[in-house]
C-alpha cells in the first residue's frame, strides 16, 4: 500500500463526506416518503427544519467534493515520485485496474454534485420548495455513487504496489499517430477537424438557443477534446512530438496548465449538461449556464490553439 500525508488528508476528507452522507440518509428517506408542504402537522414542520439542516450539510460536503477533484489530481502527481516507472499521474492511475474507473467516477460525481448545488439554489428561491423531491432523488444517486467511490478508493490505494514497475505516459500514450485507436475510425486530423467544427456548432446552437443540440454537442466535444488534447495539443505544450500525455500538463514544468485546460473543458461540459437537466426539472431559464459553458469551452479551444500558434511563430514549423 502507498502512503503519504496528502493521501491521508485526502482519505480523511473523503471519509468525512461519506459519513455526512450516511448521516443525512435517514432524513432524506423521511423527506422523500413523508413530505407534504401543505400539511400543518408537527412532522411536516420537523421535516422542513431537517431539510434546512441536511441541505446545509450537503451544500458544504458537495462544494468540498468539487474542490477535492483538482486536489486528487495533484495527489496522483505527487504519488508518482513513490512508484517505480511513474513520471506523472498517468503511471499512478495505471498502477492497477481501479485507477481509471475511480477517475471517471469522480468526474461523474462532480457533474451530479454541481447539478444538485444548482438545483438546491433554485429550490431555495421558491417559497414552497417545489424541487425538494428531485433534490433528494439526486441525493440518493449521489449517496450510492459516493459509497461506491469510497469502496473503489479503498481498493485502489490498498492495491498500489510500491515495488512493481508501472507503465507511464511514454508507454501508454507515446505511440505514433498512425497506430492510435481514435474514435469514429478517424485519424488525428479528422479528430481535429471535428473538434473545431463541434465548437462552431456549440457557438451557433447557443446563439440560436437550440439548447438540446448544445448539450449533445457538448458531450461530443468533451470526448473529442480528450483525444485532441492528449494526442495533438499536448505535444505542443511539451514541445515534443512523442510526448502525448493528459496528466503531465498538471506539472510545474508546464505551469500547471492542465488545471486550466481540463478545468475549462469539464466545466464547459458540466454547465451545458446541468443547464439542460435543471431546465427540465424546474421552470427556471438556464441560459446563463449555457453562456458559462460556451465561455469555458471557448477558453479551452483558445488556449489549445494558442500553444500551436505560439510554437509555429517561434519555430516556423509545426510538430
Amino acid at each position, binding site marked *: 500500500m502507498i502512503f503519504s500525508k496528502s493521501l491521508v488528508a485526502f482519505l480523511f476528507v473523503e471519509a468525512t463526506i461519506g459519513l455526512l452522507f450516511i448521516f443525512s440518509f435517514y432524513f432524506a428517506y423521511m423527506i422523500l416518503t413523508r413530505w407534504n*408542504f401543505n400539511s*400543518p*402537522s*408537527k412532522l*411536516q*414542520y420537523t421535516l*422542513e*427544519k431537517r431539510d*434546512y439542516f441536511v441541505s446545509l450539510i450537503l451544500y458544504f460536503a458537495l462544494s468540498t467534493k468539487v474542490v477535492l477533484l483538482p486536489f486528487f489530481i495533484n495527489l496522483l502527481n505527487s504519488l508518482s515520485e513513490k512508484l517505480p516507472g511513474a513520471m506523472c499521474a498517468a503511471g499512478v492511475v495505471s498502477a492497477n485496474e481501479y485507477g481509471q474507473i475511480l477517475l471517471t467516477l469522480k468526474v461523474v460525481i462532480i457533474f451530479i454534485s454541481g447539478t444538485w448545488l444548482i438545483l438546491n439554489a433554485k429550490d*431555495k*428561491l421558491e*417559497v*414552497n*420548495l417545489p424541487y425538494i423531491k428531485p433534490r433528494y432523488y439526486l441525493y440518493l444517486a449521489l449517496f450510492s455513487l459516493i459509497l461506491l467511490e469510497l469502496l473503489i478508493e479503498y481498493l485502489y490505494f490498498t492495491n498500489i504496489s510500491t515495488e512493481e514497475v508501472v507503465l507511464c505516459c511514454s508507454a501508454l500514450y507515446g505511440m505514433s499517430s498512425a497506430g492510435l485507436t481514435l474514435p469514429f475510425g478517424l485519424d488525428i486530423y479528422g479528430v481535429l477537424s471535428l473538434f473545431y467544427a463541434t465548437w462552431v456548432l456549440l457557438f451557433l446552437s447557443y446563439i440560436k438557443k437550440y439548447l438540446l443540440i448544445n448539450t449533445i454537442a457538448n458531450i461530443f466535444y468533451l470526448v473529442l477534446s480528450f483525444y485532441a488534447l492528449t494526442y495533438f495539443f499536448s505535444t505542443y505544450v511539451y514541445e515534443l512530438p512523442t510526448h502525448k500525455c493528459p496528466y503531465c500538463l498538471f506539472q510545474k514544468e508546464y505551469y500547471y496548465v492542465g488545471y486550466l485546460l481540463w478545468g475549462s473543458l469539464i466545466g464547459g461540459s458540466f454547465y451545458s449538461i446541468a443547464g439542460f437537466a435543471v431546465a427540465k426539472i424546474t421552470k427556471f431559464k438556464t441560459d446563463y449556464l449555457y453562456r458559462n459553458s460556451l465561455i469555458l469551452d471557448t477558453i479551452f479551444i483558445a488556449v489549445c490553439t494558442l500553444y500551436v500558434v505560439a510554437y509555429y511563430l517561434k519555430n516556423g514549423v509545426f510538430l
Partner: protein
Amino acid sequence: MTNVIEIENLNLTFSPNTPQEFHALKNISLSVKEGEFCILKGVSGSGKSTLLSVMGALLKPTSGKLEVFSSPVSKMPDFHASTFRREHLGFIFQNFNLFDEFTVLENVQTALVPTNAPVAHMQTRALALLSMVNLEKKKDTTARNLSGGEKQRCAIARALINNPKLILADEPTANLDRKNSENVIEILTKLNSQGTTVLVATHDEIFEQMIPDLKVIHIKEGAIV
C-alpha cells in the same frame, strides 16, 4: 372584510423532547380582519410576545396553520420570511431596538437600505415619517440621547418606512410614562384610521381606556381564553 391574519391550531414547543420542554403556545386559533385595531392581552409570560413573533415570521411554530395576507409565513424559508417582513410588516419592539450610535434619521432610513432605494428617496420618506411622529427637530440627534418616548416614536417611524399594511407592536408602551403612552397610541390610532391593521401585544389598560372599537384577545398560559 378579508382576514389579514388567520391562525388554526397553532402550537409552539421550545426544547421539545428534553427536560426543558416548554409548551409556549397551545392550539391557538384566531383571525384578525383588515383594518382592525386589536390587542393581545395577557400577563407577563402568557405567550403574547411569542405569538406576535410567530405572526411576524420571527419564530416558526411546531405545528398548525398560520397565514398572513394569505401567505403561509410559518412555512417560509428564512430568505423569503425576511423579504415578507420587509414588504408587508412593520415591527415595534418594547425595547425599541434602535442603533444607539446612529442619528434618528439614520435609524429610520436603515429599514430601506436592503431595498436599494435611492438615498434621496430614503431621506424624503424618513423625514416625512419623522414629521408625522413629531420628531423632525431631533433628526440629527443620536438615538442614545433620546428620551424613552422619543425612542419609541423613532421606532414607530422606522416601522412605517416600508408603508406596511400590518403593524405588530410588542408592548410599545411598557417603558413609557402616561403622556408618552398616549402619544404612541394616538399615532397608532391615526395609522389605523388610515387603513393599517394594528396588532399590539400588551398588558397595559391604557389601550382599552383610549380606543373604543378595540378588539381584545385574551391569552393565558399560551392559550386563547
